[in-house]
Structure formats: structure tokens, C-alpha cells
């Protein structure tokens, strides 16, 4: 490795400079407020977790984990997501009363990037988890909340695609029989490889009706009508159960008045093994990657010793900001330049302004090397310099 420049940062790590920090902060505040109004409580968890517990329970692929050793030789990970730590807390502490709990977080997560070093390896997620509620109402609430939160952030052009991994697996099991074959075909969906999917189906020893069904499955995308279309393909009870869940979800979202931004996509497989029921992704018009995703993960809590239903979502703040293309005027900062004989007066003026909510910089004139540069930086600048009583503007 060549010698590092002093300004260099590890691959994928970024600084947040004042403007971006302000934007992030204001968006985060708006979204957090919305989440709190829905009764979700914010928590924090450690940045480091054990690899054996949270690291291996997380949905993030092993090669994307940042690993290190503590002084006792345990392998640690920088948390790759917030869901696993929250599941850890819920299972060990909060689920004692067997009441559903609603938690929220905004935190940085860490994922090593193999490709193109510039991609963020640390980024902020803001999200919620509802743990201990098996009802579709909980899924419906999550979908409605993610929609509300994104709207609150000011994004209008976005869309949610909802799928159901339970349906996919039940449908494949009905036709293919063995778990191994279900897994193989599901993987094509996960890899978004429809060409491979069709070729794989073409090569299977199946009746032409079943092949037709498997090919038809790829078209199960669209509005509410997709559900009835899917009913015509499915015969087993688990599959029908999954569809009735989706139907119910649709009714719930409609009751919440959020159906406009929601579409179904039954081919959606966002993860090979993590999700267990309804799952969704959120897309915004001008960003090439999903800005958020979520779903039901009923098997995770079991790994922490407390089997329980759970559902939640995470929004990537950086991508949301990108899609908002924010150019909000940044709040003006007032500058008061003073010389030492008028320090007291300057301080009094600054405090008056600060009390009415203004942001005030108090700057000793002797600390300014270039008065012109200083004047250019602030639109509102007051000089309290020298013995004269009247301030010059």
C-alpha cells in the first residue's frame, strides 16, 4: 500500500460538512417527529457488537461486515444494521410483559463495499421495529408509517412495492415439491435474473400447465388486481393464507388513505432468508437505488431466545436526501465583529439576537486576517469596533 495522504479516510468513509449536516439534521428531525407521534420510542445501541450474536443474526452478508478483535480475542462487528441489535434488546429485556413494543432509531450502520471504493460504507438509517405483534395490522402500520414519514420529509414522487415471501415459497413448493428446488428458483428472483428464471423453468420436468404458471408468476406486478390474479395460480393453503394477508394489508392501507403510493410486486425477494412474510421496498423517481425497505422477520427474535413476530423498516437518509435534491435556503448566521473595548456591548447584542432565535457569531476583530473575506461570508455583519458608540453596518 502506498503511503497515505494525511487527509485520507478509510475506504467508503465520509465526512459530513456543515451544509449537509444541517440538511440531514432537519430531515431527520421531521421524520423522527412523525415516528414519535405514532408512539414509537427512540433508542440507541452500541456501535460494536459480538460477531457471534448480532453479527451472524443480521441480514447483511458476511463479507460486508467490518470485523475486529477485542483484547480478549472475541470477534466484534461494527453494527451492519439496527434490526439485529434491537431484536437482541427486545428478546433480553423488553418483551417480558408480552406486549407489542414499538421502537425507533436513527443510527449509522457499517457495510464494507467491495466495489467502487467511493460508495458509502457507513451511512445513516432511520427506521422502526414493531416487535411482538403478529397481526397484519402491524404490517399495515409499518407500510402506512413509512409512507407518512417519507411524505413528511417532503418527497412526493415515490412508490412502495409490496411482496410476500411466504406466497413465493408456498407457490414454488406447490409446483416444485422439494425445498431445494424452491430455493434454486427463489434465488433467480433474488438475483433479479428473469432470463435465468425462464431458462431454469424451461429445463424442469414439469407439466406445461405448471410451467405456464411459473412463467405467469413473473407478471404478478401491479395494483390490487394482482391478488386475484395470484389466487388463480395457487392451490395450497399457505399460499392462499399469504394472499389473504396481502388483501388485508391492502384494506388497511386503504383505510389509512395511503394506497396511492403502493403497488404489489409478488416477485420481490429482497433477501434470501431473512424475511418471512410481507416485505416491501421504497423507490424514489430520481435515485437509482431503493431509498428504504422493510418487512416481517418472524425468525430473528428466535435467534435471541425469544420467538416472536416482528416487522419494521429502515430508510437510508443519504439516498432520501439525494432524491429530495435539497436546496433549502440555509438559515442565516449573523456576525458581530468586535474590538476588545466593546466586548460587553457586542456580547449583549449577541445575546439579544440569540434569545429571539437568531444564530450569532461573535468574532474578535483581531482574529480576522481578511476583513473582506469575512464580510463576504456573512450577509448580516455588524462591526462594533473602536470607541465610537454607533455601530457601522
Amino acid at each position, binding site marked *: 500500500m502506498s503511503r497515505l495522504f494525511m487527509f485520507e479516510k478509510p475506504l467508503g468513509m465520509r465526512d459530513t460538512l456543515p451544509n449537509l449536516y444541517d440538511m440531514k439534521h432537519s430531515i431527520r428531525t421531521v421524520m423522527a417527529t412523525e415516528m414519535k407521534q405514532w408512539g414509537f420510542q427512540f433508542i440507541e445501541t452500541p456501535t460494536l457488537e459480538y460477531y457471534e450474536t448480532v453479527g451472524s443474526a443480521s441480514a447483511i452478508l458476511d463479507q460486508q461486515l467490518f470485523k475486529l478483535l477485542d483484547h480478549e480475542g472475541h470477534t466484534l462487528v461494527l453494527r451492519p444494521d439496527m434490526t439485529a441489535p434491537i431484536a437482541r434488546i427486545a428478546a433480553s429485556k423488553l418483551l417480558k410483559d408480552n406486549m407489542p413494543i414499538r421502537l425507533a432509531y436513527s443510527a449509522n450502520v457499517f457495510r464494507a463495499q467491495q466495489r467502487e471504493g467511493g460508495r458509502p460504507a457507513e451511512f445513516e438509517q432511520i427506521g422502526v421495529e414493531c416487535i411482538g405483534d403478529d397481526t397484519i395490522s402491524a404490517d399495515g402500520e409499518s407500510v402506512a408509517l413509512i409512507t407518512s414519514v417519507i411524505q413528511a420529509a417532503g418527497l412526493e*414522487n415515490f412508490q412502495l*412495492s409490496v411482496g410476500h415471501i411466504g406466497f413465493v415459497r408456498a407457490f414454488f413448493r406447490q409446483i416444485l415439491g422439494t425445498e431445494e428446488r424452491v430455493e434454486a428458483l427463489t434465488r433467480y428472483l433474488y438475483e*433479479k435474473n*428473469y432470463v435465468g428464471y425462464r431458462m431454469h423453468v424451461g429445463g424442469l420436468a414439469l407439466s406445461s400447465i405448471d410451467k405456464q404458471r411459473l412463467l405467469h408468476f413473473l407478471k404478478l*406486478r401491479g395494483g390490487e388486481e394482482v391478488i386475484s390474479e395470484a389466487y388463480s395460480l395457487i392451490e395450497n393453503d399457505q399460499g392462499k393464507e399469504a394472499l389473504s394477508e396481502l388483501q388485508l394489508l391492502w384494506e388497511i392501507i386503504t383505510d389509512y388513505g395511503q394506497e396511492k403510493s403502493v403497488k404489489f410486486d409478488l416477485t420481490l425477494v429482497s433477501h434470501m432468508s431473512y424475511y418471512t412474510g410481507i416485505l416491501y421496498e421504497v423507490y424514489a423517481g430520481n435515485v*437509482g437505488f431503493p431509498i428504504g425497505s422493510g418487512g416481517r422477520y418472524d425468525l430473528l427474535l428466535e435467534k435471541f431466545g425469544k420467538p416472536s413476530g416482528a416487522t419494521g423498516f429502515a430508510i437510508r437518509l443519504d439516498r432520501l436526501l439525494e432524491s429530495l435534491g435539497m436546496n433549502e435556503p440555509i438559515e442565516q448566521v449573523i456576525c458581530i465583529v468586535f474590538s476588545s473595548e466593546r466586548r460587553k456591548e457586542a456580547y449583549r447584542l449577541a445575546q439579544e439576537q440569540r434569545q429571539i432565535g437568531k444564530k450569532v457569531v461573535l468574532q474578535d476583530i483581531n482574529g480576522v486576517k481578511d476583513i473582506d473575506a469575512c464580510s463576504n461570508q456573512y450577509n448580516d455583519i455588524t462591526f462594533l469596533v473602536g470607541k465610537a458608540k454607533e455601530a457601522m453596518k
Partner: protein
Amino acid sequence: MNDILTIAMPKGRIFTEAAYMLRQAGFQLPPEFDDSRKLIIDVPEEKFRFILAKPMDVPTYVEHGVADLGIAGKDVMLEEERDVYELLDLQISACYLAVAGIPNTKMNDVAPKVATKYPNVAAAYFREQGEQVEIIKLNGSIELAPLIGLADRIVDIVSTGRTLKENGLVEYEEIVNITSRLIVNPVSYRMKDARISEVVERLTEVISGIKAGETG
């Protein structure tokens, strides 16, 4: 801007066939389309914008969403492993990836070397064979490598086999068949669903028409 579809087209070999196919699907592409040197070609009549890219870069443009659709060889898809939907096998520009080398030679036992434009595909292939080889990445004229002793084998695209033959090389193993694919950005696939579905349907008709013609 929102109803304009941006399509990343690969310059070179695939371009002509892909353009021909789009015309067959009934899309009105201007005649200067084919020999323009522009990198961005707008076709307002069809609400299309084409960007002309290096074949290897097409999936990158699509993954980042600056192109909604793209036409890319399966070889590139395998090598790049981008997070995009592979929607259609366009069945054009057929060829295959193969291992080739000088006739009647064996891999060097001490330090087996393979030169290729496709380091990921080649590495995966030899790993699956249980062979440990050193992969040497080249950007073109791969056939040179065995001739001048840089590598024992090459992994490259073979369409007619003529280039291999003219350079005195033979094919040892076929790795995988390659055709061009229609790929789609996952966000565009949802946000521009209606327009993309129309393109897919029209191209599907052309493909099945060709198939019917072949068998009928």
C-alpha cells in the same frame, strides 16, 4: 423528463443488431442513428434517449439509474454482477466464453497463468474446476498472451472462432453461452413500469417471431 426512457446501448458489435431489433419492434429510430458519433442521441418522437457506452459499462449506467434500460452481453453481466433486472434474452450477438490456448499444450504445473478480459468469470470458472491459476487481466488482443508466453490459457469470447484460428490457437473448453440481454434498473422497473413493460412486450414479440421463423 420523467416520461423519457434512457437506454444505454453498447457501442460496437452488438449495437447494429440491437438497433435493428428495436426497429423491428416498431420503434422509429432516425437513419443517422447508426453512424452518429454522438454519445447521447435523443429520439423525441419515441421519447427515448440513447446513451452510447462501452459494452462493459452498460450495466454500471443501469445500476446507478442514469439509464433506465440497457442492452448488455451476458458476458458483461457475469463479469460485473450488477444489481439490475435481467428481463429479456434478446438472442442477438450469440457467442460463447471459452478457454483457449496453443494446440497440444498443458497448463504449466509450477505457475499456471490465464489471461482474460473477464477476471471474475475466469477466476470463478477455474476455482470451480479446483484448479489454482493466476489470472492476468488484459484489456484487448487477448490472443497475444499465449503466443508470447504471458499465459498458458486465455478466457475470451468466441463467436466464429476465426480470430483464434488465425492466431494458431484452439479452444479447450466452452464455459458458457452468451447472448445480449435487456437489463433494467430496479427503481425504473417500478417507477416507469408502464413504458418499460411496453418496450419489453414489443421486443418479446420480435424475439418469438424470430424463434417461430427458425422452427417454422
